[in-house]
């Protein structure tokens, strides 16, 4: 318990330290764009692949479970759409990104720590945490909603193609379901979750990387801790946000 409180306190101090006045604003802006490419564009293929197959699986499983003759077949479209928009794209895709992006951030910053590159920044008078971490957080907060929207589109399209190719849900029924009872607020809710999760998947691994102490073994441990803790936090905040916003 004392250790958890210590970690929470140190994490809070770490987050506070990110917001000192930047040494040179233009360099931070350039870093943000670079990170947007690294975090977002670099993850697109993985997001596209995961979304397409998950969309297909959600559609086929929904059709398999909706066997009641009272439930029309086009309901599969509604279930697939809402599952993808509310839960799959913002939560599962962000969990996938927590693995890819989180381990990358923790190992990059952890390696910089153990090879004294962070000390070199500090010696120069640069706020190392702000310079290394803040651009990543801002970039993730900007680019992750775009990635999640892309995931929603690909997931829903994947479900459509799988349903049609397998003959489980004809195109007409699926498209009818997609357009039925659509709540635009679901997308807003998904975006709120995405922004919170984007903050978690960048700040938590960065925190673990920044406080790495030792060598290659500890860098690996920091990377693992970063991914595990950010994944757990995503699930906890998923519940909290759902309770706060939808309940």
């Amino acid at each position, binding site marked *: 318990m004392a250790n958890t409180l210590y970690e929470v306190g140190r994490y809070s101090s770490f987050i506070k330290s990110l917001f*000192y006045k930047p*040494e*040179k604003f233009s360099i931070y802006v350039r870093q943000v764009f670079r990170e947007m490419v690294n975090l977002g564009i670099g993850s697109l293929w993985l997001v596209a692949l995961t979304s397409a197959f998950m969309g297909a699986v959600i559609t086929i499983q929904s059709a398999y479970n909706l066997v009641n003759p009272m439930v029309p077949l086009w309901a599969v479209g509604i279930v697939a759409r809402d599952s993808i928009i509310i839960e799959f794209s913002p939560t599962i895709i962000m969990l996938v990104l927590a693995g890819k992006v989180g381990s990358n951030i923790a190992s990059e910053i952890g390696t910089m720590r153990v*090879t004294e*590159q962070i*000390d*070199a920044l500090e010696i*120069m*008078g640069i706020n190392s945490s702000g310079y290394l971490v803040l651009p990543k957080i801002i970039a993730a907060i900007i680019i992750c909603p775009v990635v999640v929207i892309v995931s929603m589109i690909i997931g829903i399209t994947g479900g459509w193609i799988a349903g049609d190719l397998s003959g489980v849900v004809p195109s007409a029924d699926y498209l009818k379901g997609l357009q039925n009872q659509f709540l635009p607020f679901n997308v807003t809710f998904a975006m709120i979750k995405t922004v919170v999760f984007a903050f978690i998947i960048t700040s938590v691994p960065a925190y673990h990387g920044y406080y790495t102490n030792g060598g290659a073994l500890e860098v690996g441990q920091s990377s693992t801790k970063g991914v595990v803790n950010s994944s757990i936090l995503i699930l906890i905040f998923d519940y909290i946000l759902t309770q706060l916003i939808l309940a």
Partner: protein
Amino acid sequence: MIEVDNISKQFGDKKVLEDVSCVFEQGKINLIIGGSGQGKTVLMKCVVGLFEVDKGRVLYDGRNFSEMSFGERKPIRQEIGMLFQGGALFDSLTVEQNVTFPLSMFTNMSAAEKRDRANFCLQRVNLENVNKLLPSAISGGMKKRVAIARAIAMNPKYLFCDEPNSGLDPKTSILIDELIKEITEEYNITTIINTHDMNTVMSIGEKIIFIYKGKKYWEGSNNDIMHSQNQELNDFVFASRWMKAVKQHF
């Protein structure tokens, strides 16, 4: 000049530095020597502010560095150049970008001016045609020289070197020592080197501070070492048979 005034540092229950006082003089090569785990790296890190001292103070030309906030320290930090043991070059940047990095952060120099400055600094450390290479593509000795070029890019008043010869062959070690000596004299800077390399101690050590069990045990020059009666210092410096023979012949 840097004055270290009665500083102490401990980690948990372990006292690593105890009431250390010394003066690092301008225009001279100041060495901190001592065995592994005796506190010399902690002393250097306390002086540059990577560790906060528990007691005492560090003065940079009369400015009390220890009592300054992060923001207040920035102007002094821009006067500091540091050569780390492994070079600490930024992996993702080319050699030229590494050298121009502090210039990009703290000056309004144009790209051409920064390139000229990088070329000047790299030539000063006898490196040419490496500007576009990544640190992973150059040798250990070259990394050290690039790190020196980066350290002098901002015309520092204080140069810190943490074991500059570790992992280098004897010839390259001598080259790095001579380079540091030349730069110190040329720019009249306060240079502090943390080392346990006896070649460095004997060849360029103008002022030497010996740290033993977290305390300053001895202070003098490379000539004084030969006549020292300090048992701990002699055990450390003249540990090898060859060095013992040198002392006997002296």
